[in-house]
């Protein structure tokens, strides 16, 4: 009986622990499927669909780390409250960007074709090949493991990094508000509202 309990315990532990059971690719596939399935459920209201996608993205992207990276030195000058507000706005902005991109891929087949580890940076690179009738496009997901969980830190489409592009774009906008994160928050908030209206309508 004790042996049975012990084995049962082991199964539960290893089954649940992502570090042991989930290879990064199968974890990523699971999360991508969650997003794509939400697009394929035609009876789901658009607002709810986006909320589901936003939750998936917030749980699986290194939102705070990316948020800090893309505003560069403006982060240092801001107060904690402003930073928190910015991170909240940024996470929604990120979700809107990913949701909008994935919407285009929702009716296409895909496979995770290649997975490798960049030993220098300890970052996992996973290639997702998306097939259309006329060809395919490769999206590379950059994934970092931390405390037994995986987080997406960047997406590369056609050699273009989402994070690097955002940093350049944010830098241009921050320059116009003299690197004031508080002012920038207002712009980001308005842009999010505009993008949100587009995605739900």
């Amino acid at each position, binding site marked *: 009986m004790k042996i049975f309990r012990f084995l049962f315990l082991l199964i539960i*532990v290893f089954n649940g622990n992502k570090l042991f059971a989930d290879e990064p690719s199968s974890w990523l596939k699971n999360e991508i499927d969650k997003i794509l399935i939400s697009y394929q459920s035609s009876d789901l209201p658009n607002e709810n669909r986006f909320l589901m996608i936003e939750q998936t993205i917030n*749980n699986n992207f290194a939102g705070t780390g990316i948020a*800090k990276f893309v505003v560069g030195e403006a982060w240092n000058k801001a107060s*904690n409250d402003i930073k928190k507000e910015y991170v909240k706005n940024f996470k929604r902005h990120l979700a809107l960007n990913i949701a909008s991109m994935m919407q*285009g891929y929702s009716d296409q087949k895909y496979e995770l074709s290649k997975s*490798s580890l960049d030993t220098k940076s300890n970052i996992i690179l996973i290639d997702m090949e998306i097939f259309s009738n006329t*060809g395919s496009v490769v999206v590379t997901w*950059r994934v970092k493991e931390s405390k037994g969980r995986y987080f997406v830190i960047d997406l590369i489409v056609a050699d273009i990094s989402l994070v690097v*592009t955002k940093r350049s774009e944010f*830098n241009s906008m921050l320059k116009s508000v003299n690197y004031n994160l508080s002012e920038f928050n207002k712009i980001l908030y308005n842009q999010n509202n505009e993008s949100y209206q587009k995605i739900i309508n």
Partner: protein
Amino acid sequence: MKNIFFLFFFIFLTCFSTNVFSAASDQVDTSSDDFETSQVEDEIYDPFEPINRAIFSFNNVADRIVLEPIAKGYKKLPSPLQTGISNFLSNLRAPLVVLNQVLQGQGENAFQTTGRFFVNSTVGIFGLIDVAEKMGLEEKEEDFGQTLATWGVGDGFYVVLPLFGPSNVRDTTGMIMTMMTDPINAYVVSEGEAWIVPMRTAANAVDQRSKIIDEVNALRDNSLDYYAAVRSSYYQNRNAAINNIDDSELTPLPLISIEFE
């Protein structure tokens, strides 16, 4: 007592294993300065930004009114027809790709592209069917802008060309060299059929645009500064093309931390 202890132990392990304790998303409260150690180039040399932005706005309107609707229409054609047109246009570019591969010292690639051109132009019925790909002859693109970069010519300043879109001094020079040296264009002009040249350019634009409809819309709809986003995307894409390195290896890896409260 033993059973209660076991129950608590079991609950603890189950919660731990299903990440209940670690399920909180990343939080704000740390003071890592990762961004300061990044090697990413933030500033692109763009001394004529106001003029470029004006041309970019014009191009954006032209894209919305003309190019995007045509590209969407093109996407509705039967997929074998789209693939055939795309293959045909790509095959016409092959002679100049070979020349640029030779100029860049890529002997093996030049040999492969030459093989592709002959196989696709004959067995592939004037390039409509990409037979060479199935034979393992992979398609690779090279242009004069890339050749000049390989020879050490710098980007120069960023420029937005009317209708042609983002470029820089070096790539614009490369584009002019392409127009002047393209053997297909030279042939049709010599035959008194110069109208084919702009038609071919337009067909290329529609074909290329049709492949990135969703990506462009996602970028346009969600950008704080669409101009800056396109400028950055252009440089990243060109750097990848110039260096001929796998995208995942090339683009600088941002040093992004995962932060927990």
